[in-house]
């Protein structure tokens, strides 16, 4: 057989989430599904809220922090960014979240998905943020 494409996985998840929404046991989870489609050789991102409404944006975020990071990404995101540039944008987003949110969130993990699969990048820690400033 062959593995599920990101689009198939996302749509399956949406269908499941939508079906359970009106059951006695609905799921309450917001999702960002990121994948690399090996057929078309393109990365794909899917945004899904807990009610199972889904969209395919270029960048996305959930939660209160998302209000700030969405605008940061609106300003600085480019479709032809390199991995390093994207990581730097992530650091900018983390910085803003840490500045504006009352809850202390010191550490963030970063994972990248590309043609070579899923790899962890350096976590964004207070040290990384301080160096980037």
């Amino acid at each position, binding site marked *: 057989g062959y593995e599920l494409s990101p689009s198939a996985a996302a749509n399956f998840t*949406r*269908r499941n989430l*939508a079906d359970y*929404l*009106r059951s006695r046991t609905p799921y309450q989870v917001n999702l960002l599904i990121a994948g690399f489609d090996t057929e078309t050789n393109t990365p794909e991102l899917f*945004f899904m*809220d807990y*009610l*199972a*409404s*889904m*969209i395919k*944006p270029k960048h*996305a975020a959930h939660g209160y922090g*998302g*209000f700030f990071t*969405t605008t940061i990404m609106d300003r600085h995101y480019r479709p032809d960014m390199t991995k390093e540039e994207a990581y730097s944008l992530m650091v900018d987003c983390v910085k803003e979240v840490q500045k504006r949110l009352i809850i202390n969130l010191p550490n963030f993990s970063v994972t990248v998905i590309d043609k070579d699969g899923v790899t962890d990048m350096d976590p964004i820690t207070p040290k990384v943020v301080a160096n980037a400033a």
Partner: protein
Amino acid sequence: MSIFEYNGSAIVAMGGKKCVAIAADKRFGIQLGMISTKAQKIYKLHDKLYIGLAGLATDMQTLKQLLEFRLNLYKLREEREISPEVFANLVSTMAYERRFGPYFISPVIAGLDENGDPFVDSQDTIGAGTEGQEPWVAAGTTTEQLFGMCEALYQPDLEPEELFETVSQVLLTSADRDCLAGWGADVYVITEKGVTHRELK
């Protein structure tokens, strides 16, 4: 907050002379935040039948999939395309089946009947429709504004180009007065010859 105002949308459909137009905004938002400006709210069912879905986004997506499913079954059995009147009745029946746990959707159906005359229908959450009796219909969070603009700008028997201009003005002006709708528009004009799809900013 009302469940009908959770996402936000503006949909309008208007009949002309042997043509019909349907237009929708492109905002996908969650309460006060905008998530995307590229949402699709109007779906093609066949060359002469389009449906616009307003209301809760998750139900819009679910209903679109369910309707495609039912339409494919109809086509397999009947070996012809469904007519707008019959389709409107199908949507209505499907909605009423969920009378005590409804889809939070206001569907707007626009198409050309067998004679090439425009058919527009707008339904509430449980399937009560205008049944093709109205020259134009509106749905979504922007209905009040849309009603005003349609009433003011509508004229009977508009040609496709004039209809496009009218519908575009109606939608854009109305959506500008609704914080939950806007961020662009999709306008479809359906005639015997074919469909023109234009995107407005």
